[in-house]
């Protein structure tokens, strides 16, 4: 590291690394220099002139956003001259800007409004008519109101640099300049809404949120996205028990401000009209509404009866329910129902990876590693489409640290554009493709390998052997599909493993075997939809389903219990890289209950509550921390809304990982399994229909 540069900002001594910009150096001592076009992490634009500062010995004001620190520099950020310059800048920005803040969607959280409030360009000397152009809608997600645009280029840059999409540009010149979408009158893009949330003013607004509320009328609930496995933090704006928006403008969480369309707009399933709000019971062949007490009693009665005669239970768990729910469900199944027929849909071979890595330390990558490590190898996955946040991390790593990215995939992927080397392989040829990169990878100093479901079983061991042969530190990510796919495995929702990857040593049926079994007496499905694509052989089996919607599986049920969504409960989930984070309760749906509570109430009605313990998420998590290998994570991190890395490796896992059952749904940006079908926003964008 070169010696730090010493300078003075507003009388405070500052030391900053050479090359630091004055605007960033000021932040080191708590001084916030106003800016519109400057945006941390994006290329410099120097377009707005809001950041002008006085620098001693400089003949005129300088833009702090493009000025590198220099030894002995004396900067003043709030002098009368500076304030006056900012005021004039604002006066110019307001010449054609509508002054209707009371009805603007951004009112109350607009950076322009804040700046005018601070520097008081309250009177305009501009007496001409303001230029007006009508608002445009570019997609179900994105609306653009030209007159409000201050041409800061943030949207253009986040889309091309952050997203790697490049769907926005600036057309025309001078006062008639405006932002334009990539297809003339409409957008064809990721529909992520990054451009909308980064817009400092009300020029870009979202189809989901616009003109529905004022920001201060909402409660802001930071929780974890319930769609893919990446575990992005999303802050839900909740008003009157309804989610009005999702964003992450406070840039907290592992994802900073990143969210894809699912995390930002895909919450609308929570108040979908088909949402179940009452238990249903089959009466004369038809599902009819019933009260909770009647439905729970019926379930308890049936369970007790079958249990008493040692009948056969099958339990299928979810990839979206919390760790607490998964843990509690398997505990209930194994210790109360006495069955080991418990499984869930598996999407990645985490088990073999953990086994192959036994005896090593620090071999599991975090999402932060994808941004920080010097090289990344992507094997058999279209990250930008299937694992959006991981892809964002890798792009940012490339932009900020010139990370070397290697790609081995069947088809073209967005990562090709930043790749140091790309290998196209036929299906099944992924490992050979990886081997062909050996010489190049050996020249790297460290590597993260991210692999999809084409690498499973023996192939995972070979991949790890390959990693070992490189002679450099290698970390791994085994990709999985959904928000708690990883937690389902960690919590032992598979017949061969107990929580923490301890072998169960008891025979148990897999999902497929349960559906094939003719002698199954009870099938209990918690938040999964196995009958979407398969039939069930046991015609007379009693089926209990905990669900949000009347899915294919729920339609076959004898009793349906309406479940709360992940946005309506507390508990923790574990993302694709094994980071545990806590959910917070946003809205609530009348009539629905969290799965944990439903399971607990069934136990209570069976008179066996003591055997499973209290159905309180915090209590169950305490038990998980105490008993599940890898989950003794610091509570302080979890409580503060942080992400704690679980370390489930070490010691062999002496079971067969069943690679034959591992299959990724390969959801893209606009699908999300069964859940995605109930999001109108995901279904409304044209890119979703094409895919």
């Amino acid at each position, binding site marked *: 590291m070169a010696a730090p540069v010493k300078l003075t900002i507003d009388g405070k001594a500052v030391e900053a690394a050479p090359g630091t910009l004055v605007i960033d150096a000021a932040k080191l001592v708590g001084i916030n220099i106003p800016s519109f076009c400057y945006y941390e992490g994006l290329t410099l634009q120097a377009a707005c002139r809001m950041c002008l500062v006085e620098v001693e010995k400089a003949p005129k004001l300088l833009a702090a956003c493009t000025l590198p620190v220099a030894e002995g520099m004396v900067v003043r950020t709030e002098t009368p001259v500076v304030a006056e310059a900012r005021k004039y800048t604002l006066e110019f920005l307001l010449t054609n800007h509508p002054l209707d803040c009371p009805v603007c969607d951004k009112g109350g959280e607009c950076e322009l409004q804040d700046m005018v409030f601070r520097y008081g360009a309250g009177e305009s000397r501009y007496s001409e008519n303001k230029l007006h152009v009508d608002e445009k809608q570019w997609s179900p997600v994105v609306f653009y109101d030209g007159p409000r645009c201050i041409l800061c280029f943030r949207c253009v840059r986040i889309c091309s640099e952050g997203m790697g999409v*490049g*769907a*926005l*540009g*600036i*057309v*025309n*010149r001078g006062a008639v300049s405006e932002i*334009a*979408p*990539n297809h003339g009158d409409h957008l064809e893009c990721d529909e992520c809404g990054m451009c909308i949330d980064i817009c400092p003013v009300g020029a870009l607004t979202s189809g989901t949120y616009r003109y529905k509320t004022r920001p201060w009328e909402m409660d802001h609930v930071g929780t974890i996205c319930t769609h893919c496995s990446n575990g992005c933090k999303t802050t839900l704006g909740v008003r009157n028990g309804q989610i009005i928006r999702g964003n992450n403008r406070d840039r907290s969480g592992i994802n900073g401000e990143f969210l894809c369309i699912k995390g930002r707009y895909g919450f609308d399933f929570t108040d979908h009209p088909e949402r179940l709000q009452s238990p249903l019971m089959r009466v004369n062949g038809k599902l009819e509404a019933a009260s909770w007490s009647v439905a729970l009693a019926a379930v308890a009665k049936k369970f007790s009866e079958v249990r008493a005669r040692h009948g056969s239970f099958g339990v299928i768990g979810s990839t979206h329910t919390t760790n607490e729910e998964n843990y509690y469900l398997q505990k209930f199944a194994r210790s109360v129902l006495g069955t080991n027929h418990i499984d869930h849909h598996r999407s990645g071979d985490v088990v073999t990876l953990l086994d192959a890595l036994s005896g090593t330390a620090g071999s599991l990558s975090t999402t932060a590693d994808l941004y920080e490590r010097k090289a990344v190898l992507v094997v058999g996955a279209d990250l930008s489409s299937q694992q959006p946040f991981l892809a964002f991390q890798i792009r940012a790593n490339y932009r900020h640290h010139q990370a070397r990215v290697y790609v081995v995939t069947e088809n073209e992927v967005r990562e090709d554009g930043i790749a140091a080397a790309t290998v196209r392989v036929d299906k099944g040829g992924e490992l050979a493709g990886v081997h062909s990169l050996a010489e190049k990878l050996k020249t790297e100093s460290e590597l993260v390998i991210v692999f999809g479901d084409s690498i499973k079983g023996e192939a995972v061991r070979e991949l790890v052997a390959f990693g070992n042969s490189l002679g450099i530190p290698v970390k791994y990510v085994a990709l999985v599909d959904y928000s708690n796919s990883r937690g389902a495995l960690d919590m032992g929702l598979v017949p061969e493993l107990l929580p923490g990857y301890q072998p169960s040593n008891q025979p148990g049926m897999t999902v497929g075997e349960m559906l094939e079994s003719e002698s199954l007496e009870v099938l209990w499905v918690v938040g999964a939809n196995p009958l979407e694509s398969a039939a069930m052989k046991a015609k007379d089996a009693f089926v209990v389903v905990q669900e949000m919607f009347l899915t294919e599986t729920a339609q076959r049920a004898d009793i349906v219990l309406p479940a709360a969504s992940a946005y309506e409960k507390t508990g923790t989930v574990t993302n694709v890289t094994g980071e545990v984070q806590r959910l917070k309760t946003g809205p609530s749906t009348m009539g629905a209950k969290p799965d944990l509570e439903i399971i607990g109430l069934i136990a209570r009605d069976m008179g066996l509550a003591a055997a499973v313990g209290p159905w309180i998420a915090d209590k169950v998590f305490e038990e998980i921390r105490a008993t599940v290998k890898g989950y003794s994570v610091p509570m302080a991190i979890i409580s503060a809304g942080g992400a704690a890395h679980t370390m489930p490796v070490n010691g062999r896992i002496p079971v067969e990982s069943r690679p034959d059952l591992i299959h990724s749904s390969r959801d893209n940006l606009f699908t999300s399994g069964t859940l995605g079908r109930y999001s109108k926003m995901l279904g409304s964008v044209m890119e979703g229909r094409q895919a």
Partner: protein
Amino acid sequence: MTLSPHLEAKFAKLLTSYPPGRQRSAMIPMLMFAQDELGQVTQELVEEVARRIGCTPLQVEEVLTYYSMLHKKPLGKYHVQICTNISCMLTGGAELWEHASGKLRIGHREVAADGFFSLEEVECIGACSWAPAIQVNYDFHHHVTPEKLDRLLAGLRSANAV
């Protein structure tokens, strides 16, 4: 899109005229040469240029809409550009503009019905010393008066009469 052999050759040369990786620099000359031949910058051309220099059509659009000498709408066979900037304005440029507009019965950036002439009010064309100045396609005309303009337009018409 198929280009004329002439244009094809120009494009090929342009692509080698800039250092490797800087092929985007060829964007403006490509658009200018093609516009001269096609009379306008079509959407097809935008996409073709984007493809050849490796950028998005939107990035071509950004440049195209920024520069007033690039036109998406077809121009007349003779594009008459009248300067009304300061030197020309002081010496009769504005009257010249009024005269031309009245005579051709078209306004700024419009094309006459027969497609022969189009008109554009332009900023300084760098001929202040000989103001008022106009430019017809790539030819400059100095110290222009309404009478001189009439003769010029008539001359162009008869030269093209069949």
